[in-house]
């Protein structure tokens, strides 16, 4: 038991399974996740906040954003403290387009993702040459700039924000309802599954290997002929795309957005989800997003000391499990210790 590691244990089961068993595992997992909104009557119930609403935001949307940020921070080792910028761009794209055009959420979705990706490329080209903490502060600044612009220009309604965003049109004849958010949860769940699928495909192919090389030693990767800047921009842009998608969904769920929703705190919280759950490992990141999204609402009964407890949990868990609740594979971890890049 000395080297027990839940992540490796899980991976072991997966590797020993044959094709049918794997399909079964996947189906059971998805079904269990899809049934989550029905667990509201159990000990999972959240006081004050509605359980099914909490499941959509923060829980599911945090998970989605954590997966996106994990591509940047976990897979390719770049510290991004301005992830909220892409979330804001997605949300504002939805807000502005639904205010001025007749487009519905699903038509806006690709535009929102495109806008976020464009912003990612625009920010990435000049700044991704920077390393480590310098990149962190520049991305942080970018996040703040987006928020301040939204606050100060008139076409975003300034601090009043945009209200009256359209609800998404019905899916398969089922209407979206305010007092029942199950359908919304399933929509976000599908987005999460698509994201997981995309990340898993990319990880085992050329970009994944390039990111891994960059994360472990950027100079060595460059010497070996990996076009590092190109892959870094790719990683950054993919992360941005997922952030943008989360933003579009968030605006459609919330029906109202304002600049104060897109502060640096969101970036920090999502980064905390990634590191808390287990940086670089998809399942860890999902767990981190779910727990940190869910916890503040679950402990609402300690009302005033909620954030204090939240901070303490971060300190304690990081101290006792520095690689997160579900760390990445030992093999990858061993290498990260030598290189100081993560």
């Amino acid at each position: 038991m000395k080297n027990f590691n839940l992540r490796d244990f899980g991976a072991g089961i997966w590797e020993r399974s044959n094709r049918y068993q794997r399909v079964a595992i996947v189906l059971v997992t998805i079904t269990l996740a899809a049934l989550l909104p029905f667990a509201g009557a159990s000990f999972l119930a959240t006081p004050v906040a509605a359980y099914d609403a909490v499941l959509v935001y923060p829980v599911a949307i945090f998970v989605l954003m954590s997966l996106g940020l994990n591509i940047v921070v976990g897979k390719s080792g770049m510290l991004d403290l301005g992830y909220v910028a892409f979330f804001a761009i997605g949300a504002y794209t939805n807000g502005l387009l639904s205010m001025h055009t007749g487009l519905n959420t699903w038509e806006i979705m690709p535009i929102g993702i495109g806008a976020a990706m464009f912003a990612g490329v625009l920010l990435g080209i000049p700044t991704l040459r920077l390393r480590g903490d310098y990149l962190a502060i520049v991305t942080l600044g970018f996040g703040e700039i987006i928020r301040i612009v939204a606050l100060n220009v008139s076409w975003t309604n300034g601090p009043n924000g945009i209200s009256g965003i359209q609800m998404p049109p019905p899916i398969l004849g089922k209407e979206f309802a305010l007092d029942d958010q199950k359908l919304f949860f399933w929509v976000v769940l599908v987005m999460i599954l698509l994201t997981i699928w995309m990340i898993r495909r990319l990880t085992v192919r050329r970009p994944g290997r390039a990111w891994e090389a960059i994360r472990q030693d950027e100079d060595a990767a460059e010497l070996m002929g990996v076009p590092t800047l190109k892959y870094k921009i790719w990683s950054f842009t993919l992360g941005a795309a997922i952030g943008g998608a989360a933003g579009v969904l968030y605006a459609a769920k919330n029906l109202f957005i304002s600049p104060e929703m897109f502060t640096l705190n969101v970036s920090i919280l999502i980064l905390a989800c990634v590191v808390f759950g287990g940086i670089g490992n998809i399942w860890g990141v999902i767990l981190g997003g779910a727990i940190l999204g869910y916890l503040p609402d679950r402990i609402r009964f300690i009302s005033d000391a909620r954030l204090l407890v939240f901070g303490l949990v971060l300190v304690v868990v990081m101290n006792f499990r520095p690689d997160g609740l579900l760390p990445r594979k030992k093999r990858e971890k061993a290498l990260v210790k030598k290189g100081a890049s993560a």
Partner: protein
Amino acid sequence: MNKKIKASAAIVAAIALSFGAFATTSASAATKTFTLAYQGPLSGGEASTGIDEQNGVKYAIKVFEAANPGYKINLVSVDDEGDPAVASKVAPGVGTNTKIIGLIGPAYSGATIASLPYYKAGNLTVISPSATRVSLTDPKSPTAKSDYGRPIFHRVVATDDKQGPALAKFATAGNTAAKVFVFDDQSSYAVPLRGYVEAALKNVKGATLVGGDSVPNTTTDFSPTIAKIKSAGANVVIYTGYYSQAAVFVKQLRDSGSTATFAGGDGVFNQQFAVLAGKAGEGAKLTGVAGLADVDPKIEADFKAKIGVSSGVYAVESIDAANIFLSGIKNGKTTRAAMNKWVKSYNFKGIAGANIKFNQHGDISEGGFAGFLVTGGTLVNKGPVA
């Protein structure tokens, strides 16, 4: 089991324990129990506003329970941190919890707009003591489709478009050649109010608008703003933000040697402004609605005895809002639909003496702003500004 796992197990156990500590209360058979809710910022940076308002609500409930034995009122505290993002998380739960028959709040306009769809869906009547954004009760505003709160939204506070002219008028009173500088703190409260003040200044004789600024509400160094004021030669400075920044600003303004009149709206109207600003606050002109101590020192003393602290901002409004629901409960309006009808037809005096009656949009017809002058460290009522 290694050390790591033990540690994690301990954490999990601790969390599980704290979850178990949450229990629901059940009503006893003898008394009639009803549930109201208060929504506002009870934690986070804006918490003091919410705590003050909730104390007002608690006071009203205590008075009601003492006067009507046999009634028990549960108050659900809905903490939205004053943040629309949090409000849209907690509002669905409140909207679907049909035990709650009336809600006092939300305190802030942004949080109100984020919560409204859920309360409309649940037909939950709300009475806000402090959400002043005009569009909430204006069917003609460009965002009326989402912001207009009819039929469930009501408020016992006058709106920004009433306050703007009052503030412009009071700030420039007695100054025939007022050169006015207006600035805000970038909040969703201050920016629209600044707009109404600037618009109203056009109708004030002799007053000219000479400049403005927009200062993030985390700023403590106001030297650039003061440089602008001096450069523009302003003799009246109006700030539409909140009291804590106002106190910091007015000190720096006086230290720079400026003698320009300082004026602020009901965000600045707070005894704490006079305390924090000290001597620099003397002579500041504020518009606001009379507080509890100003209305009746006896009630204020009773408040302090029952709640343990002095009444704070929007105490009068919070008590009035709570009393509307409480009188409904006493009159047997125990469902959301009945309560809504009751509030719509409500027509009684509030504790400040003015009549409370809602118009079709949910605004009160009577009650306006009074002007206050900071004199000797207290806010002295100079009568209504009309």
